[in-house]
């Protein structure tokens, strides 16, 4: 089965600093990777995704890095804002499986 884990269960950063949230996965067949943000009392919201044929993808203030060699995924948030405070999940899937495996989540707290 898949095992998706996060290195840090909690992360506190100062407003304006950059945040890095890490994720490790074990299934080498995983070829789709996604980050979700879950605010309190809400459902997970899509942030950014990446396929295994890429090692970096950028969005607005967010960057996902994929290292397939060590099966590691990270989410970088630039100039972190109070509104970024949430639990962040990584998830993996295989093309055609439609079966996302979620990591345990990292709670990001932004200190004003």
């Amino acid at each position, binding site marked *: 089965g898949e095992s998706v884990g996060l290195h840090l269960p909690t992360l506190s950063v100062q407003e304006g600093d950059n945040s890095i949230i890490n994720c490790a996965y074990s299934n080498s067949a995983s070829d*789709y990777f*996604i980050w*979700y943000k*879950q605010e309190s*009392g*809400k*459902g*997970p*919201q*899509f942030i950014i*995704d990446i396929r295994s044929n890429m090692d970096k993808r950028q969005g607005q203030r967010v960057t996902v890095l994929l290292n397939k060699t060590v099966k590691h995924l990270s989410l970088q948030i630039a100039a972190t804002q109070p509104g970024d405070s949430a*639990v962040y*999940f990584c998830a993996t*899937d295989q*093309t055609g*499986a*439609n*079966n*996302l495996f*979620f990591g*345990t*989540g990292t709670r990001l707290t932004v200190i004003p």
Partner: protein
Amino acid sequence: DTAVSQTPKYLVTQMGNDKSIKCEQNLGHDTMYWYKQDSKKFLKIMFSYNNKELIINETVPNRFSPKSPDKAHLNLHINSLELGDSAVYFCASSRWTEELQFFGPGTRLTVL
């Protein structure tokens, strides 16, 4: 105009009761999912349906019975509720050909 909606938002009930949670999506997706999120925020898939057909059925007690009357709806019926069923249940949807899933706002079930 919520993309994935669930009712009710909160559900408090006694042990042994039977209850249902409803989910609807207006995204035109053909695949829908139910997830359970425990108190530690761990998200685990329970079921998925594609075009009203059961695709994924993880190790879930048979007290849980999903029903998909059409592609836009996936309801979850739970018989003989137990204390351990207390959790937040999320519905999600996607296109069958895509891995990206969109989540509903969740239903917090509390069994007393």
